[in-house]
């Protein structure tokens, strides 16, 4: 379970080192200090992970997909050859133990070619979290230590007319606390 301390201290210079503060520490700094323990919520992207399809050379209409659960690239369509490294971004969530949180992802991402005119779309964006069978809403449940992780995958459709080059885009990943 993630906690943060809110310490009220008046006119006292506390050079607090992040990471290992405690209530006792605050008391040492100022006898009148009060500490309030707050539930905290953390989200971080695991270092070095990203939604990366690698590079593709296309000769005919094909679909390339990244599986959120395994991170595997499906590049089996005949009209496309994939090279380079690929992978999915993995996010770590920390918060209230045994709590379910919603993950919101965009339905699609539009990426723009560096030439400024061409674009390409990523669809079927999904996490490897639990999916509500009725609504399709995605969620993860934090474990007894208040931790959970999820990854995000997607799918690109390309064909021989897709302009070669670099496409860039951003996409929103939102963890919703209730």
């Amino acid at each position, binding site marked *: 379970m993630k906690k943060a301390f809110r310490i009220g201290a008046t006119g006292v210079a506390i050079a607090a080192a992040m990471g290992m503060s405690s209530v006792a520490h605050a008391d040492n700094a100022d006898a009148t200090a009060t500490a309030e323990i707050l539930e905290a*919520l953390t989200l971080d992207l695991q*270092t070095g992970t990203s939604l990366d399809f690698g590079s593709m050379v296309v000769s005919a209409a094909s679909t390339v997909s990244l599986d959120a659960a395994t991170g595997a690239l499906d590049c089996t369509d005949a009209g496309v050859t994939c090279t380079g490294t690929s992978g999915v971004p993995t996010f770590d969530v920390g918060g209230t133990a045994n709590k379910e949180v919603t993950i919101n992802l965009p339905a699609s991402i539009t990426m723009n070619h560096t030439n400024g005119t061409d674009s390409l779309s990523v669809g079927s964006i999904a996490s490897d979290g639990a999916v509500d069978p009725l609504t399709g809403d995605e969620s993860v449940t934090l474990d007894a230590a208040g931790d959970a992780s999820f990854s995000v995958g997607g799918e690109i459709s390309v064909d021989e007319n897709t302009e070669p*080059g670099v496409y860039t885009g951003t996409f929103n990943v939102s963890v919703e606390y209730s």
Partner: protein
Amino acid sequence: MMSNSIFRKCVQLAAPMALLATLSAPAPVTAQGDLLVAPTRVVLDGSRGTEVILSNIGSEEAVYRIGLELRRMSPTGSLVPVEKTDANEREDAALKMIRYAPRRITLPPGQPQAVRIAARPGADLPDGEYRVHMSFKAIPKVREVTEEEESDTNGIAIRLIPVYGVTIPVIVRHGRLEAQVAITQPRVEKTDKGQQLVMELNRTGESSTYGELRVTKPGQSDPVFLVRGVAVYPELNKRSLRLHLTPEQAAAMTGPLRFEYREMPDKGGELIAAVDAVLGAATARVPTAGNTAGAAR
């Protein structure tokens, strides 16, 4: 990374923030935009404001944008985004009454900063619960496409940058509000993803409820199952809970059981609703007896 600290703590001083020691020398290739937010929900009743702490737990300087967004809870408990243009009257009023600052924060690694929040309800505002969801989002740094990437003209290369963040509910309770919840039909269902504990939370009144759901066996104080942070918002009269069970939990979910929905322990743990039921082993039965308790707030 989560593993490098079991307990993340951040310290916020009422005295000037500049007194905090800051960490320096970020690692060269690291995630940028990791964040900590505390507390995880804000309830404002009255004109007194509060603060939410935002801390950069990444290892690079990051710019964060703080905004107000709208969410509605679906009957299955998901928080579904709602565009501001589609806001209803109550959501509109909530957006208008909540003041917060700052809206954009640049933080070096390890550095926290407080975001102040207050509600300014109009004099003629009808009693009720008003809610927005405050989002904390890291703004990605724009990286130029290198010439090396540009020259790779045979193929298609794709660069996708996640803009990631969290939202927490900011709730304004205006006037004296009440809510009652009844737990109905607790049962265990077999699904293709294993066994799930399923039940409905029926809510009435003007207020939301928030707490933990505990399942206990008679004579045992430790719950056989516990979920925390279960919210039922006022836009819902009925929320279904569908909770995944481990095989051990599923095995314990038989016979006479007590299902309790209580306020969170740090809010006093008051009983909101309870029902006693006898569950069968493989398939669920209709609960044999039930009672509910109200929670005034």
